């Protein structure tokens, strides 16, 4: 799985597609780590193109969130599908990874 990346200056939007799983999660997490190391600490993961997420995908998001916050930034998720929403709630991760309806909403105070 590939993912799109758009650098908007104040933030970077990453948009994985398809199944965000044990195959797709490691490269996205590596990219997030690289971005954070380069000072790009305000990240939005746009999940509109993701129809399935597994625990590896969740782990990449949590790891990315921690990395961004440690550098004073944040990672937010937007356009979360039904399955991902169910898994976020089941794992209680919706408490620290609040899903925003759109990328625009995720940016509200950046």
């Amino acid at each position: 799985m590939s993912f799109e990346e758009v650098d908007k200056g104040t933030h970077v939007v990453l948009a994985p597609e398809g199944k965000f799983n044990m195959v797709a999660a490691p490269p996205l997490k590596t990219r997030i780590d690289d971005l954070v190391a380069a000072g790009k600490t305000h990240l939005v993961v746009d999940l509109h193109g993701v129809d399935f997420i597994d625990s590896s995908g969740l782990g990449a998001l949590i790891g990315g969130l921690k990395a961004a916050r440690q550098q004073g930034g944040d990672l937010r998720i937007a356009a979360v599908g039904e399955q991902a929403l169910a898994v976020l709630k089941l794992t209680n991760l919706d408490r620290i990874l609040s899903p925003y309806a759109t990328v625009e909403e995720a940016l509200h105070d950046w």
Partner: protein
Amino acid sequence: MTGNGAPTGKDYVLEGFAVPDQLDAVHALLAQAAADHPNLEAMDVMLFETAIIEIANNVVEYGRPEGEVRWKFTIRVREDEIEAELDDTGQTFTPEQGKGMPGEEAEGGRGLPIAEALLDQIEFKRMGDTNHWRMVRRLGQLPPA
């Protein structure tokens, strides 16, 4: 091909190597079973899919020798439940069942707890030189929306 009223209890079977590329085939197997049973609630299928993929992930990730483990998935739809059986030729091990969901900051350790939360039965046993998982989700147990 099955038309209307696909027989309940029909086996949907996938055999091959337990490697990352084959996870899509597991999704496709369940999609085929669901397509033959239009009365299945989409939410039941989605949550069952989430559960069995986590168990499949574990076999792919931890089964040894890596890349050489073979597996056989069997899915059955019954009137009141959907069942998957997974046999694999990986090494023997003891799954840590019943550990509960890890804390919010954890980056791993959620696979089996997710499966356990979404299934009504999850059984593991070693049978000869094969690991055997049986996973069942009862249908019609969805909470009100």
